[in-house]
């Protein structure tokens, strides 16, 4: 990476990340169900060349299960973070441009969502929607928009105080026109950085809620499920089922986090010179 400037560096990270995410997603789709079928002849095997991640108690290959699980995690993570980022933009703009009452109401709603611990709230929402993928997705999307919404509200308030926005208003441009041409272009970087930085949270919450048993059904190969199964065999020394799938998840999250920070540094004029 030496010899490249930060912009090129960030671009490389973005391409690498997109490639990895796409590969994970495709692998999850392409791996046939036979690959994760169990065989009791090979149960509880330690990592080897044939099974790099070892096998679980039912003899299923853990590498294949992990990859399939990652694909589910990545899908849930992307969907949930896109939904909550979009909610955050709408709510943030509404709070900053609407009446004082609306602003107070939205702030109160944010306080309300923040007053229940995320894990408990996701459990509650997932319970309300009858568990499964839908409940998990809505639960995570509904709990992660708050901080980004506050950020965007602050940003819009700041933008609206700018002279060029008020001049634009005096020149007879409508509120919608100003929103479209003056506010949204400035919010785009915030939106994308927020989106990328939401992703790790969404994925980690998905994994932990699945781990607790509220997310995906147990037959689905999700990381949280694999790890919660591994709990039963921990004391017998089956370390590979707990350690390796978790490690792959950490790698994905780190990669995305890295990209988010790079984007933030590039797009934020205050830190771009650091």
């Amino acid at each position, binding site marked *: 990476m030496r010899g490249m400037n930060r912009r090129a560096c960030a671009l490389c990270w973005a391409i690498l990340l997109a490639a990895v995410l796409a590969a994970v997603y495709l692998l999850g789709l392409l791996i046939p169900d036979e690959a994760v079928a169990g065989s009791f002849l090979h149960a509880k095997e330690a990592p080897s060349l044939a099974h790099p991640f070892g096998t679980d108690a039912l003899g299923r290959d853990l590498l294949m299960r992990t990859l399939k699980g990652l694909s589910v995690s990545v899908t849930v993570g992307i969907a949930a973070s896109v939904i909550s980022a979009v909610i955050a933009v709408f709510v943030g703009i509404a709070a900053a441009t609407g009446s004082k009452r609306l602003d107070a109401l939205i702030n109160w709603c944010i306080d309300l969502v923040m007053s*229940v611990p995320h894990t408990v709230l996701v459990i509650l929402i997932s319970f309300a929607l009858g568990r499964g993928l839908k409940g998990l997705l809505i639960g995570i999307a509904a709990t992660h928009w708050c901080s980004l919404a506050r950020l965007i509200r602050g940003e819009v308030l700041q933008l609206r105080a700018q002279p060029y926005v008020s001049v634009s208003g005096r020149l007879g441009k409508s509120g919608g026109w100003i929103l479209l041409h003056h506010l949204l272009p400035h919010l785009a970087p915030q939106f994308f950085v927020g989106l990328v930085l939401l992703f790790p949270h969404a994925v980690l919450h998905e994994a932990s809620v699945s781990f*607790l048993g509220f997310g995906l059904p147990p037959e689905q190969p999700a990381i949280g499920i694999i790890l919660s199964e591994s709990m039963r065999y921990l004391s017998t020394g089956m370390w590979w089922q707990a350690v390796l799938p978790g490690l792959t998840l950490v790698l994905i999250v780190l990669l995305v*986090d890295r990209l988010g920070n790079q984007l933030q540094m590039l797009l934020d004029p205050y830190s771009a010179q650091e």
Partner: protein
Amino acid sequence: MRNSVLRMLRIFLTSGAKLAALLLAVSVISFALVSASPVDPVQQYLLSLGTAVSPEQRAEIEAYWGVNEPPVQRCLSWLAGLLRGNLGESAIYRRPVADIIGERFVNSLALMLCAWILSAVIGFGLGCLMGMHRDRLPDRVLKKLCYLLSSVPSFWLGLVLLLVFAVGLRWFPVGFSSPIGILSEDVTVGERLHHLILPAFTLSLMSFVNIALHTRQKLIDVLNSDYVLFAKARGEGKWTILRRHGLRNIMLPALTLQFASFSELFGGSVIAENVFSYPGLGSAVSEAGLSSDVPLLLGITLFSALFVCAGNMIANLLYGVMDPQMREVGE
């Protein structure tokens, strides 16, 4: 003096009213969520009984629980019970929810308090260390570690710690809050602590990153200030500067942040208690959700909201009342 007492009173009153409104909203919304659930609580209850139940008995239970009444009426009667301190009866434990919460909260409180203090101490210490050595080796290594830890799923961290320290090295027990096979009256404090160390450590690892990075940033701001430059010119040493100028300025924001993090603390304890099979509120809430114990689920949700709000209120008070700079602004 009188002014400040009045101000305190006003803060207490307004935040009390806000708290009440917030809790009311939380209880109504969580009740609505639970009633929207497709899971039939009566069916779950009957399944948990394990015996055959005649349709008449079932109808009796339904009438007793008021399942067939309209949701609004049910909600109102639940809220009325709530005001009288009656949270309903847990379906899995067959005991009043308030009792269970009280009992479990003692366990959770021990865990959360240990983790809270531990994360404050670790976070503050590391934050100071990073701020003092900005951009040098300790700072770079610790910052990497902080970013790494914030990307690690908390339950996985717990599992790995469990593998290393409980299964591998056998330093700590694998789970629960007391040794198995011993009556709860006979468990000593030492044994309880021994069971507490690993979960508390996991929980504090989840939450110290925030405070460490925050402290680092604050300390760097302080060290870049003019008064620190003057102190250096006067010939004060590094540690004297930290003690005289650094700590005083960064203690209070750090403490405020720590109180405001009750939400993450509670959420983390749900995970940690499940990993370590620790009998606290966190494991109770996931049990309640999994076995559709609606009263217990609602009770704990409400209690967690109360807990978080209490933390936020303390943080606000600390921020607005104790900090002389903020006090000046307020007046």
